[in-house]
C-alpha cells in the first residue's frame, strides 16, 4: 500500500463506508431471496415458476 498523504483517514473512511454498505445491500438481497425461496417451499409450491425446468 502506498502512502495516502495527509487525508488518509478520509479516503479510507470513504472506501470502508462504501464497501460496508455494498456488503450490507448484497447480504440483504441474498437473505431476502433465501427467505422467499424457503417460504415458497414451506407452502409446497408445485409450479416452481422460478426454476429452470420447462
Amino acid at each position, binding site marked *: 500500500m502506498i502512502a495516502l498523504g*495527509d487525508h488518509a483517514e*478520509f479516503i479510507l473512511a*470513504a472506501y470502508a463506508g462504501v464497501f460496508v454498505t455494498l456488503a450490507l*445491500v448484497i447480504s440483504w438481497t441474498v437473505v431476502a*431471496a433465501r427467505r*422467499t425461496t424457503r*417460504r415458497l417451499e414451506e407452502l409446497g*409450491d408445485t409450479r416452481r415458476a422460478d426454476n429452470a425446468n420447462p
Partner: protein
Amino acid sequence: MATDAVQKMTFWNRLAHPGQFVQWTRPLVWPLAGLSLVLFLAGLYFAFFVSPAEKYMGDTVRIMYVHVPSAWLSQFVYATMAASALGTLIWRHPMADVSMKAAAPLGATFTAMALFTGALWGRPTWGTFWEWDGRMTSTLVLLFIYFGIIALWRAFDDQLRAARVVAVFTLVGAVNIPIIKFSVDWWSTLHQPASVFRADGPTMPPEILTPLFVMFFAFTLLFAVLQLVGMHTEVRRRRVTTLERRAARGESR
C-alpha cells in the same frame, strides 16, 4: 422441441412472463456477479497502487473512484425506474412493476453512498463536509424522492395497485428532477458567486481515468446483478402472497 415455442416468442413476450423472465435471466446472475467482483478487485488495485496522486487534489482524488460511480448510479437507477414506470403505465408490463420495486432501495442506497463519499471528499478539498452547492443539493433532493417512493410502496397492501400509483409518482418525479436541478443550480450560484469546485477542470490523465472506468463498470454490473436478483425475489414473493391467500381461503372454507 419444446423450447422452440419459447424461442419463437418475441423478446418482449419473453420479458413479460414472470416465469420466463426468471428462467431467461437466472443464468446471467453468476457470470455478471463474477465479472463485477473481478472488476472491483482490479479497480481497487488501480485505485490504490497504480493511480498517482492528483496534481491539485492530492491523494483525495482516490475518493472519486467510488464517488463518481455512486453518483452516476443514483441517476441511472432513477432512469431505470422511470423507464419501468412507462412500461407499467403504457403496456401494463408485469415485470416493469417488479423492476420498479427492486430498483427503489438500490437507488436510495447508491444516492446515500454518493452523498457520503461526497462529504468525505468535500472535507479535505473544500474544508467542509456539507456545502449547499448545486450538485450535492440536488442529490439530497433525489434521495428524498427515493425515500418518498419507498414509503409509497410500503403504504399499499395490494402491490398491483401500488405499482401503478408509484409509476405515476416516479414519472412526475422524472419530469421534475431537471427542474429541481436547474432551480438548485440557479439558487446556489446566486448565494455563492465564488465557485468552490468544478469537476470539468483540467482533463484527467489516463492513470486516473483507468480506475474510474473500471470502478464505473464494476458498480454498474453490481447494480445489474442486485436488480436481477431483487426482481427474481419479488416474483417469488408475489407467488408466496398468492399461495398464502389461497391457503387462507382453503382453510376458512
